[in-house]
């Protein structure tokens, strides 16, 4: 059985926070274990932060639409926006940050795509009809919703 749910919000940091919280709360109520829901929240937050910071960087913030499909053993999350496409139409590689450098040279950003690629088992991107469609897949063992307090 597939459970599908969705939400949309304006691409601002504060609206993204409440939109993502609502998705994660639904995942928990549907029996996604807490630690796994945390990991989905990390990857989803990084993906949406990118939309807020880059896709709508030079335009008034548009909408972000999130659709989640929860299967018994996996979760697909689709994030759609009408902002700028990824540079050269490709997703960033997401290399790990180099931490073997003097403290004053440590990176203060650029962790986002690395986290997404570490936490999601599949990442797909498609640009169509002026929209970015990013899909993240997570392998998940759903426990009984009643087991969640």
């Amino acid at each position, binding site marked *: 059985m597939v459970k599908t749910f969705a939400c949309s919000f304006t691409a601002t940091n504060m609206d993204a*926070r409440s939109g993502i919280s609502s998705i994660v709360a639904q995942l928990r109520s549907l029996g996604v274990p807490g630690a796994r829901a945390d990991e989905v929240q*990390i990857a989803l937050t990084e993906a949406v932060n990118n939309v807020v910071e880059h896709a709508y960087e030079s335009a008034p913030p548009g909408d972000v639409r999130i659709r989640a499909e929860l299967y018994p053993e996996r979760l697909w999350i689709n994030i759609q926006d009408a902002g700028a496409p990824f540079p050269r139409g490709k997703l960033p590689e997401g290399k790990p940050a180099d931490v073997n450098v003097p403290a004053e040279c440590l*990176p203060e950003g650029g962790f*986002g795509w690395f986290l997404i690629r570490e936490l999601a088992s599949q990442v797909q991107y498609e640009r169509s009809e002026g929209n970015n469609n990013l899909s993240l897949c997570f392998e998940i063992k759903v426990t009984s919703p009643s087991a969640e307090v």
Partner: protein
Amino acid sequence: MSLTTTMTDDAQIVKVNAERIDAAMAIQFKEDMRTETDSGADRVILDLSEVQFIDSSGLGAIVAAMKQLGGSRKLDLAGLTPMVEKVFRLTRMDTIFDLYGSLSDAIAPADASS
């Protein structure tokens, strides 16, 4: 963002009174840390026990807070919740900071905590 400072004999403890350090809070956090640690002990302990969620912006802001202390002062992290600890571990930032399970671990004598 609310930060609370406590001074001990040899360290400044800064407690983050927020559940999140995320993209919406990161710049404010960095600026408030600059103000809070403008002067004081060489060792600063950041108490993260209230923080339930951090993203890469928040992580970057903690790195920035460490860098703005300068080379002669040190930022240690205490009381990381499992989710926060996971983000530090995945990004290997757990190798940059000294992490303590709790504030009392952090302020225990150095030879007992190693």
